[in-house]
C-alpha cells in the first residue's frame, strides 16, 4: 500500500457522466464514497437523463452539471474538467473518469495512485475491468484497436479472472470507465476528440497520449466493475451524430475514424481497404445469422466516414500539432493479424466443440468429495488405458474399421471401376467440369453438370485438390460414417448400447451398403450416410407444423445434398409427401382445420421443391429427360431384379450373392405385426421396399449408354434398410423383458430365428467381404484404356471399340473418346448416341460399312481403336473395309486412321475442298483464307458461335446435325461456346443456396436481446 504522504501529492477529481443510468448509479455512488483513498472532488455531468439519475446524484450530494441530451462523453468530461478549480503547481491533479454503469472496488483509486506514484511518465492509468453481473469475468486489462477496427482486449471471450493478467502493463489505452488521467496532460492534449461522442474515444485518447510522449498503463490491482450498458444496448444512444441511434454503427464508424486519424499517412490506403473488406465480411456474417440491421451498420459505418474525408484530414492535422513521436510508436500495441486470426479460429473451434460436445454438468468429481481416509495423492478416478476398449462404441467401431481395412485392401489408391470413372488429378478439373457450358464428351454435350461434382470439388479443395485421395478416403471411411450416422438415430430409440451398436454394425454391412461401396455408387453411399439424420431432424413428419421454418430449411439443405447426388431422392420424397398430403387432407375433411392443413402443405412442399431449386438446372433438365430421376452418378450399370431387391439386395456387380440373404425382410414382416412402434417403422420400410421392387423391373437408357439397363434401386433400399434396422432395434429393446416374463410361445421362436438369421448373415457377409468382396469392381488402378499416343493430338476424336462384360456375357460396345479415358462427372453429361455414327459402327463390325470411314470423317473421328482382347475376325473385317489405314497394332489394341481430312474444325471451300483448321479444346482462334463454310464437328448447340472480323457468322445445322457456319469473306475467326445461360443458372443456384443457408442458419440476437445472465 502506498504511503499516505505520497498519495497526498495527488489530487483526484472524480467526474461521473450519467445518462439514464439509474439502474447502476446507486452502486456507483456508493462505491465512490467508500474508497479507501478518498476522492477529493466528485462532480457529476448529467446529459439530460430521463430517469431518476439526477435525483439520485442530488440525494448523494454530488455536484451536478447539466448537459444536453445529445452531449457526447468527451464533451461531458470537458465540461466537468472546466468546472474544476485551476491547477496547483505543488500537487499532481488527476481526473478519475467514472461511467454511471461502473462501480470501482473500494481500493481502486488507492491502487491506481499507487501505480502512478513511482511512474511520473504515466499520463493515464486504468483499472482491471470486471463484469458487472459476473464479477469473475474479466472484461479488460487495457485496450487496443485491430487493423480492421475491432476493439482488442487480448482476452478470451468470457475469460475467468484468476489473476492471470495481474500486474502493471504498458498498454495503448485503457477504458474511460475508471481511467485516471493527469489533468495537465488531458488539457495539453485537448481532451477527448469531439468527433468521438461515444465509443473508441478511449483508444483515441490513449493513442494521442502515446504519441505525445507519455505512457498509459493498466494497473490490475485496481478493480472496477463495468456493466457496459451502451455497448450492450442497455440504453439508447442519443449523442449528436449517432446516426439512427445505433451503437454498432457508431462504434464501427468511430473505430475507422480512430485508425484513419491516428495512423501514419502511408498506412491509410491499406487501412481503408482492410476496413472496407472486414466490414463486408462481417456484414455477410450478420446476414447469415439474419441480422440485417447489424450488417447495414457495418457498411454504413465505413461509408459515412469515407464519404467525408475532410473530417479525417482535420483530425490528422489536429493530431499532428500535439505529436512528439512517430505514430509508429504504437505499432507494438496493435495486435498482429495472425493473433486475430488465431483467436478467431480458436473461437470458431470452441463454438463447434461446444455445439457437438456440450459440457455435461456434474460429470466432474472434486477431489474433495473423496473419502476422507483416502490418500489425496491417489487419483479419485483410476482407469487403465485399455479399458477404453470395453466401451461398446470403441470396440464396435474398431472392429468395423479392421474389417473395412481388410476388405478395402485393393482400394488403397486412386479408385476406378464399377460405376466410378477415373478421378481427375485435381479439384480444378472438377470445378472446370462443373462450371463449363460445353463438355468434351463423345460428340460433345451442353447438359448441366450434376451438382454432386461441386460437392466433390469443395471437399477436394479442402484436401488441397487431391480428388483421388478424397475418393479413397470416402470409400474407406464410408462404413464407419454409416455406422456413426445410424448410431445417432438408434440412440434415440434405445438406451442399450449393445443393441444400438450391433444394429448400426449390421447397417454398415447391409447388402445395399456393401453393393454400393463395391460398385462405386457415390449417391447410394452418400444416402447411406446422410439419410439416418433425416428422421432425427424430421421427427414430426406427420405433425410437420411442429417444426420451425428454420428446421424445415435445414432439412431442405440436407435434401439438397441428396438431390445433388441423385434425383431418386426426389422421387422418394415426392412419394412420401403425396401420402402425407393425402393424410392431411383426410384430417382436414374430418376437423375442417384449414390453417393447419395449409401450414402442413406449405412445409411439405417447401421440403420437396426447394431442394429441386437448389439443384437447378440439373434438376430441371430431368423434367425433359425423366430417366435422370432414376439414375445415379457415374457409369450406368444394371441393378438386380425384383427377386433380389425384395430381399434388400440391390444386385448388380459387387453385390452380395443371392444366397446371402439379409434379415431385412424378415424383420420388417415380424415388426409389421408387432404391437410396438416397430410397426410404424415396418410400414415405412415396406413403403420403401415396394417401389424399390417395382422400379427394379424397369430398364432405362442413360449416362452415355444406349442400351437399356435395369434400374439400380439402392437409394430406395437405403430407406428400407434404415426402417428395418430401426424396427429391429425397437423389437430387441423391449423383447428381452417380454420374453423373460412370459411362457414359451411363438415370440420366443421368432426372436431366436431373427437372432440366428442376423448372426449368420453377419458372419458370412464379413467372410465374403474380406475374401470375394475384396476383388469387387472398384479397385485402385493406374491403367488406362486409351494408349498414350492417342492423347498426344489434342482433342482428337477416336472411336473406341471394346468387348465389355464378364466371360460368357461379353458384348461389343463403342464410344467416342477425346483421346483420354473418361473422368468423374463425364458419364453424367454424356450425350445420346448419334444415329449415323451408330449405323457406321454397326456396319464397321459386320463388314458392310463401305461408307463407315466417310461417316466417321464427317463427324471428326480421326481414329478407330479396337481395344484388346477383341475378336480377330472383326479386326480382319475392319481391315477389309476401305477408308481405314492401320496406324498401329500393339498388345493394347489396333488403331486405324480414318482416311480423309477430318478434325474438329474443318473449312470447306466453295469447290468442296476440305481444309483442317486449328482448334483448341472448346474455343478456337484461327483464320480462313477465302469464303466458304466452317464445319465444327461437335453436336449442334445454339450456343456455338463464330465471329469473323467482328461479325457473327450465320449458323446452320448440317445434315449430320453439326454446327455449320457460313464465312462470306476471308479473315480471322473466333470460335466460342457462349456460356451465358450456364452462368445465369449457376448464379441462380448460388443465390438459392445462400438464401436457404441464411434461412436455415441459427438467428443471431441483438445485444439488447441477450439476457444479463448470458452476457455475464
Amino acid at each position, binding site marked *: 500500500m502506498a504511503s499516505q504522504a505520497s498519495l497526498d501529492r495527488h489530487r483526484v477529481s472524480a467526474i461521473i457522466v450519467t445518462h439514464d443510468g439509474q439502474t447502476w448509479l446507486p452502486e456507483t455512488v456508493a462505491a465512490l464514497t467508500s474508497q479507501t483513498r478518498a476522492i477529493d472532488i466528485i462532480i457529476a455531468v448529467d446529459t439530460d437523463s430521463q430517469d431518476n439519475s439526477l435525483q439520485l446524484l442530488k440525494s448523494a450530494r454530488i455536484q451536478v452539471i447539466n448537459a444536453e441530451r445529445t452531449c457526447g462523453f468527451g464533451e461531458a468530461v470537458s465540461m466537468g474538467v472546466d468546472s474544476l478549480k485551476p491547477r496547483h503547481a505543488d500537487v499532481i491533479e488527476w481526473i478519475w473518469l467514472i461511467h454511471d454503469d461502473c462501480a470501482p472496488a473500494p481500493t481502486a483509486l488507492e491502487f491506481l495512485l499507487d501505480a502512478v506514484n513511482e511512474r511520473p511518465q504515466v499520463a493515464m492509468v486504468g483499472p482491471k475491468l470486471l463484469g458487472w453481473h459476473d464479477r469473475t469475468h474479466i472484461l479488460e486489462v487495457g485496450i487496443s484497436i485491430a487493423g480492421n477496427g475491432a476493439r482488442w482486449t487480448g482476452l478470451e471471450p468470457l475469460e475467468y479472472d484468476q489473476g492471470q493478467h495481474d500486474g502493471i502493463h504498458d498498454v495503448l489505452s485503457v477504458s474511460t470507465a475508471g481511467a485516471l488521467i493527469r489533468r495537465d496532460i488531458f488539457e495539453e492534449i485537448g481532451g477527448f476528440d469531439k468527433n468521438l461522442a461515444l465509443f473508441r474515444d478511449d483508444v483515441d485518447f490513449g493513442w494521442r497520449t502515446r504519441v505525445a510522449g507519455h505512457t498509459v498503463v493498466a494497473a490490475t490491482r485496481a478493480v472496477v466493475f463495468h456493466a457496459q450498458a451502451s455497448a450492450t444496448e442497455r440504453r439508447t444512444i442519443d449523442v449528436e451524430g449517432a446516426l439512427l441511434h445505433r451503437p454498432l454503427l457508431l462504434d464501427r464508424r468511430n473505430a475507422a475514424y480512430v485508425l484513419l486519424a491516428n495512423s501514419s499517412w502511408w498506412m491509410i490506403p491499406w487501412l481503408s481497404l482492410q476496413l472496407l473488406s472486414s466490414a463486408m465480411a462481417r456484414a455477410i456474417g450478420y446476414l447469415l445469422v439474419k441480422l440485417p440491421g447489424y450488417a447495414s451498420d457495418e457498411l454504413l459505418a465505413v461509408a459515412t466516414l469515407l464519404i467525408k474525408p475532410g473530417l479525417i484530414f482535420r483530425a490528422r492535422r489536429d493530431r499532428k500539432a500535439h505529436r512528439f513521436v512517430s505514430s509508429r510508436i504504437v505499432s507494438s500495441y496493435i495486435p498482429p493479424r495472425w493473433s486475430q486470426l488465431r483467436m478467431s479460429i480458436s473461437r470458431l473451434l470452441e463454438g463447434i466443440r461446444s455445439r457437438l460436445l456440450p459440457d455435461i454438468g456434474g460429470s466432474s468429481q472434486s477431489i474433495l468429495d473423496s473419502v476422507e481416509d483416502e490418500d489425496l495423492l491417489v487419483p479419485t478416478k483410476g482407469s487403465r488405458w485399455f479399458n477404453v476398449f470395453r466401451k461398446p462404441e470403441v470396440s464396435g467401431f474398431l472392429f468395423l474399421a479392421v474389417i473395412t481395412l481388410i476388405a478395402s485392401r485393393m482400394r488403397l489408391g486412386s479408385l476406378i471401376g464399377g460405376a466410378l470413372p477415373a478421378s481427375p488429378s485435381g479439384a480444378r478439373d472438377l470445378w472446370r467440369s462443373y462450371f463449363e457450358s460445353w463438355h468434351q464428351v463423345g460428340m460433345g454435350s451442353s447438359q448441366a453438370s450434376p451438382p454432386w461434382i461441386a460437392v466433390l470439388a469443395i471437399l477436394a479443395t479442402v484436401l488441397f485438390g487431391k480428388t483421388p485421395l478424397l475418393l479413397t478416403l470416402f470409400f474407406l471411411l464410408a462404413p464407419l460414417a454409416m455406422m456413426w450416422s445410424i448410431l445417432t438415430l438408434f440412440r434415440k430409440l434405445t438406451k442399450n448400447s449393445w443393441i444400438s451398436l450391433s444394429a448400426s454394425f449390421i447397417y454398415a454391412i447391409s447388402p445395399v451398403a456393401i453393393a454400393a461401396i463395391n460398385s462405386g455408387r457415390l449417391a447410394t453411399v452418400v444416402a447411406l450416410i446422410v439419410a439416418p439424420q433425416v428422421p432425427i431432424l424430421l421427427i414430426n413428419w406427420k405433425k410437420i407444423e411442429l417444426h420451425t421454418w428454420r428446421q424445415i430449411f435445414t432439412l431442405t439443405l440436407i435434401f439438397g445434398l441428396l438431390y445433388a447426388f441423385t434425383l431418386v431422392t426426389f422421387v422418394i420424397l415426392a412419394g412420401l409427401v403425396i401420402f402425407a398430403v393425402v393424410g392431411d387432407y383426410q384430417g382436414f375433411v374430418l376437423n375442417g382445420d384449414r390453417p393447419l392443413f395449409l401450414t402442413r402443405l406449405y412445409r411439405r412442399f417447401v421440403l420437396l421443391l426447394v431442394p429441386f431449386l437448389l439443384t437447378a438446372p440439373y434438376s430441371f433438365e430431368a423434367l425433359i429427360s425423366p430417366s435422370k430421376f432414376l439414375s445415379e452418378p457415374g457409369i450406368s450399370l444394371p441393378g438386380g431384379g425384383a427377386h433380389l431387391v425384395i430381399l434388400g439386395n440391390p444386385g448388380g456387380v459387387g453385390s452380395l450373392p443371392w444366397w446371402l440373404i439379409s434379415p431385412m425382410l424378415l424383420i420388417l414382416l415380424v415388426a*409389421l405385426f408387432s404391437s410396438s412402434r416397430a410397426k410404424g417403422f415396418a410400414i415405412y420400410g415396406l413403403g420403401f*421396399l415396394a417401389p424399390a421392387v417395382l422400379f427394379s423391373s424397369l430398364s432405362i437408357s442413360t449416362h*452415355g449408354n444406349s442400351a437399356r439397363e*435395369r434400374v439400380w434401386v439402392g437409394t430406395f433400399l437405403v430407406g428400407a434398410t434404415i426402417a428395418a434396422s430401426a424396427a429391429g432395434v425397437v423389437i430387441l429393446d423391449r423383447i428381452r423383458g417380454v420374453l423373460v416374463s412370459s411362457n414359451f410361445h411363438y415370440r420366443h421362436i421368432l426372436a431366436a430365428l431373427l437372432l440366428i438369421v442376423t448372426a449368420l448373415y453377419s458372419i458370412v457377409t464379413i467372410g465374403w467381404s474380406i475374401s470375394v468382396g475384396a476383388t469387387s469392381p472398384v479397385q485402385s488402378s493406374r491403367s488406362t484404356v486409351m494408349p498414350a499416343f492417342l492423347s498426344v493430338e489434342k482433342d482428337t476424336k477416336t472411336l473406341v471399340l471394346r468387348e465389355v462384360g464378364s466371360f460368357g456375357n461379353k458384348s461389343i460396345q*463403342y464410344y467416342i473418346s477425346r483421346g483420354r479415358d473418361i473422368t468423374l462427372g463425364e458419364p453424367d453429361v454424356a450425350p445420346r448416341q448419334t444415329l449415323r455414327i451408330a449405323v457406321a459402327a454397326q456396319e464397321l463390325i459386320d463388314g458392310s460399312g463401305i461408307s463407315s470411314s466417310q461417316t466417321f470423317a464427317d463427324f471428326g473421328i480421326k481414329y478407330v481403336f479396337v481395344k484388346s482382347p477383341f475378336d480377330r475376325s*472383326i479386326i480382319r473385317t475392319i*481391315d*477389309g473395309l476401305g*477408308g481405314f489405314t492401320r496406324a498401329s497394332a500393339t498388345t493394347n489394341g489396333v488403331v486405324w486412321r480414318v482416311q480423309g481430312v477430318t478434325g474438329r474444325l474443318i473449312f470447306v471451300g466453295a469447290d468442296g475442298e476440305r481444309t483442317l483448321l486449328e482448334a483448341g479444346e472448346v474455343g478456337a482462334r484461327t483464320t480462313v483464307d477465302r469464303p466458304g463454310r466452317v464445319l465444327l464437328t461437335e453436336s449442334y448447340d445454339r450456343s456455338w458461335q463464330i465471329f469473323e472480323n467482328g461479325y457473327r457468322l450465320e449458323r446452320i445445322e448440317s445434315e449430320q446435325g453439326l454446327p455449320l457456319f457460313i464465312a462470306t469473306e476471308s479473315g480471322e475467326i473466333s470460335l466460342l461456346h457462349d456460356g451465358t445461360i450456364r452462368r445465369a443458372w449457376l448464379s441462380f443456384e448460388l443465390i438459392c443456396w445462400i438464401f436457404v443457408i441464411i434461412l436455415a442458419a441459427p438467428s443471431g440476437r441483438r445485444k439488447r436481446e441477450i439476457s444479463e445472465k448470458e452476457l455475464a
Partner: protein
Amino acid sequence: MKRSIYALLALALSFTLATLLTVTTKSSVFSESYPAVVCPPTLSGLSSQISLSSRKTAFQRLSNRSTKTIPFNVLRYPVSKDSLVISATGVTPVVWQSRAGSWAGGAICSGPTSSQWFVGGSSDVTSRGRLMVINSGLSEAIVDVQAYSENGKQPLVSLNLKSKSYIVLNLDSLATGDKSLTVHVLPRSGRINAFMIDELGAGLQSLGGDLVNPITSPSRTLVIPAIPNQIPKKGQKASGSHTLRVLTPSDVDANVTVELLSADGRFIPVGFNSRRISSGIVTELRLSPKISASAFAVRIKSDEPIVAAISSRVTVKGRKDFVWSTPTPALVPMAMAVTGLTPLIAFASDSIAVKVEVTYLNGKKSLATIKGSDIATWRVPNAARSITIIKASSETYAGALVASANGYGYLPITPGSLLTRVEIPSSNIRVLIP
C-alpha cells in the same frame, strides 16, 4: 392391423407386377451374314471353272475398285484370269483348275481366315508350285508367310498387299532346294485368302499337280476322309502310293498314330503306331496299305497339335498325277455347289449317318441317306448343281474325289464361309474406363 395388411399387399402387388412386367433387356443384338468368298485367280496356262448353285449368285472381280457386284447368270463360270469375290450366301462355290493334259485339282472358294496351313508343295528343282495370296479387302494388308521343310523352319516372308490385289509366290523361293514343304499363311491385317498349287515337272515332262486345300489350325486329331487308292488292273504295276506329310509346329516332338479306315476294315499300318515326329521339321512317311477299296480315310492322333496331308500318286490316262488329300473339320449342315462335277464323296466316322439333298440343274431335288461305319462312299448324281448336307452324325468327316480328263482332284466337304453372327455394337461410355 389394417395398415399392416395394406403395406403387405402393396409389397406383394409390387413384386407380382415386377415379375410379370419385367422388361427383358436384350443386351446384345446380332447381325447374321455369310462373308463373301474368294476364288483363286487363274494363272497363266491354267483353266478354271467355278461351280455355282444359282445363276443369280453375284460376284465382282478382285481388280474392280467399285464395290458393285453382278450376277454370274451361269452355273459354271470359267475364270479367265482375275480372282473373284463371290457373294455365295451360304452355298460354297467350288473351283476346278486344270492344266490341259497335265493335271487337275479342286478347291473350295472360301472367306477370309485368320490362319491357313498348306501341307503340300515342294521347293526342289521339280517344283513349279505357287502360292497365291489374295487381299480382297479395301485396305492394305500385311501377311506373314512361314515355310517349313524337312530342314526345319525357314525365314519368315512378310508381304504387303495393296487393297484388292494378289501376289503369287513361287514355292521354290520359300525353301529353295527342299523337297517337303508346309506353308503357314498368317495375315497380320487385311482380308486375306491364300491358295496353293503344287505342280511338279521334270524338264518338259509334267509330273502332275494339284490344288492344296488349307487347314485352319493344327490339331491333335486329324481326319483325312477321302484318299484315292487306285487299284492296279490285273497285270498292271501298282501305281498308287501314298505319302503322309506331317509337321508339328510346336516346340515339342509329337507322337503320332495313324489309323486307316477303309472298306476292308480299320487298322493301324505297321510302323504308324506312336511314331515320333520331330517338331518344326516336315516329315514324310510312306503309306502303302494293302486294301482293295478305291478310297480310304485316315485318322491321325497326336499328343501335340500337328498339321498333315496325304499325297497320293494316281495315273490318269497313263499320265502321272498326284492328289493332296487334306484333313477336314467335322461335317456340319452346309451346301456346296457341284455343277459340272460328279464327285465321289467319302464319309469317315465310327458311325456314319448323313442325309444329303441333291439339287439338280433343272431345279429338282432328291434326298440320299448314307449310312455305314468307318467309311462310306457316295457318288453325286449327274446333273447335280448342289448338294446340301441336311443332317450329319457327329464326328463325321467328308471329302470329295473328282476325276476328270486332265486329272484327279480332292475337295474337302466343308463350308467356305460360315454364317457369321456379328454382334451389333451398342454405344456405352463404359468402354472408356479400364
